[in-house]
């Protein structure tokens, strides 16, 4: 994207987009390391490579707006304002985590930030976005809801039901597709007869646009337009972000896998959304390489502190914590 167009966006927003992407990247790289050292138990689905989508989408929202997430939800929570300490503690199953160690990486959430939950069932969060958007319209509070989901989600029934319902009820929802070309370990063209998920939008009666998901400004601008549309009472929109996850569906391997070529992975890594954006920011004289490095260092320090915090945090206690939070007790 040419710098001329970007000049319409304030420096403050550009730096915000950058910061949120770097926050996601550095947290994820650390989480990957800790997972490979078995310090984070269970499955881990890293967001590295897709940062522009979460950042571009969430910068277009207010803190009160809601989002729903996927099994690959760390990036969404960070972009919505999630803090590293309770995130890292949750990854490690500690009682100081966002979910008190009961959810882990796959269910990371903070409802207070309008992040209605990462979800282990593909596509299942999308109907929740429709419900939150229904509540926003019901209360006339002018808030909107953004559902993040992958290309794979659009093949599941719940997605179709939710998209149709959102359009039928004319709700303030933004359907934010992260098309990373693979449904888990299966290439998109093996399980879908269309190339562009956005083609599906018209069938529900909403506009669908395609953006370069490695270009955070493109994502932000599309999200901003869709958010504005939703706030104006003009109903749902779909944005398809063409993106790529650098690591495997789960775990920390990037190369040497049977379902995608190393060459392809390297090509996408060349289009690293953070590197691309930092080059643009430097050209536009918004942020020098040195200034960017300062930001990286500062955030890395915060990540390191979060790891220390998590490792020093207690584990939940089977005697006292197992059966709490199953039900809301009557007040």
């Amino acid at each position, binding site marked *: 994207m040419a710098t001329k167009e970007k000049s319409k966006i304030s420096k403050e927003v550009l730096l915000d987009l950058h910061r949120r992407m770097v926050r996601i990247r550095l947290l994820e790289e650390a989480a990957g390391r800790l997972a490979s050292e078995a310090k984070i138990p269970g499955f881990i689905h890293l967001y590295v490579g897709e940062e522009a989508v979460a950042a571009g989408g969430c910068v277009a929202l207010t803190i009160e707006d*809601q989002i*729903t997430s996927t099994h690959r939800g760390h990036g969404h929570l960070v972009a919505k304002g999630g803090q590293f300490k309770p995130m890292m503690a*949750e990854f490690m199953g500690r009682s100081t*985590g*966002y*979910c*008190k*160690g*009961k*959810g882990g990486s796959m*269910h990371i*959430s*903070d*409802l*207070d930030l309008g992040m*209605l*939950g990462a*979800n*282990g*069932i593909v596509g*299942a969060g*999308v*109907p*929740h*976005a*429709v*419900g*939150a*958007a*229904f*509540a*926003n319209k*019901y*209360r006339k509070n002018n808030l909107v*809801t953004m559902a993040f989901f992958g290309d794979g989600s659009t093949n599941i*029934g*719940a997605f179709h*039901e*939710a998209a*149709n*319902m959102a359009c*039928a*009820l004319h709700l303030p929802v933004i359907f934010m597709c992260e098309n990373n070309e693979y449904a888990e370990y299966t290439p998109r063209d093996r399980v879908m007869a269309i190339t562009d998920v956005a083609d599906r939008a018209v069938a529900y009666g909403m506009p669908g646009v395609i953006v370069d998901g490695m270009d955070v400004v493109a994502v932000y601008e599309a999200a901003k337009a869709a958010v504005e549309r939703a706030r104006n009472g003009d109903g749902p929109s779909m944005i398809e972000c063409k993106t790529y996850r650098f690591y495997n569906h789960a775990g920390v391997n990037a190369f040497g896998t049977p379902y995608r070529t190393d060459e392809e992975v390297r090509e996408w890594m060349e289009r690293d959304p953070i590197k691309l954006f930092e080059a643009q920011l430097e050209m536009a004289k918004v942020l020098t390489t040195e200034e960017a490095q300062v930001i990286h260092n500062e955030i890395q320090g915060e990540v390191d502190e979060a790891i220390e915090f998590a490792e020093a945090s207690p584990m939940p206690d089977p005697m006292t914590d197992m059966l*709490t*939070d*199953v*039900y*809301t007790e*009557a*007040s």
Partner: protein
Amino acid sequence: MAVTTETEERVIRYNEAFTETLRDLMREDPDIFIAGEDVGRYGGVFQSFAGLNAEFGDERVVDTPIAEQAIIGLGIGAAAVGLRPIVDLMFMDFVMVAMDQIANQAAKMKYMYGGKASLPLTITTTGGAGLGAAAQHSQSLEAWLIHVPGLKVVYPSNAYDLKGLLVSCIRDDNPTIVVLHKKMLGSKAHVPEGLYEIPLGVANIVRPGTDVTVVAIGKMVDEAEKAAEILSEEGIDIEIVDPRSLLPFDTETVVQSAKKTNRIVIVHEAVRNGGIGAEIAAQIQEEAFDYLDAPIARVAAPFSPVPFSPALEMSYVPSAESIIEGVRGVLHRNA
């Protein structure tokens, strides 16, 4: 339970009790809305929502697409941000269509998200056979639901209980499921005006007795009462316990009754295999094994889908006759 005393007993239908309770709660709480298939303009396939759309408008009584997953998901999302949704699954058989949203989403959110998600969501549906509705519109699937931590499930056996349980469920801050029995929609009972609650997890001793405890679910309470009349002519005095709420379940009342009568028959409309009767029997033997004078008997549907032909369906659903047979079975068995 809080019953308003009235000089004149008002008798209304089960279905009317449902509708007026929704209406009264919606007048009281602007956060309540209803969404489901045909619930709006048409008033629901059983007219259970009749008049509500006219009074509260399309915003609060919402016709949805035929999309059970999204209907439950709509309720979840709206509840997560503070509304108090009532979402309807026309037939209980459709629970399976929406099972991910019910069991993986609604039920688990609070726990998975570390206690922050409070989901004041009520799912209403209709269960039960006897209308010639065949295999996919007649089931009682409570056993599927009581297996899921995080849910609450009620299956009211009469209009009075329906109202009190419905109020409790809608006011509860957890996902609750209210199962109406299709064949009871027209049944009448004394139902006070005004809202009252029947606490969840408190069984009702419908008929005290000394010889055999019959634990009956939903419409089976009716059949058990018929059986009790016939048996009492023979000098057999059965105690009927209606759990009312299946999750949470009032184990204590059932166990106390078992300790008193020493003989138990459990009656439900769902198939015997893996039914709620198995769970109740297990709980009774854990708490009162030494008090039992006979093996616990279950009277339930045979292990087949619900058949269509009235000739088959009539003998498929447990009746007063099959309950009597079950009672005789546990009485004539000496420990």
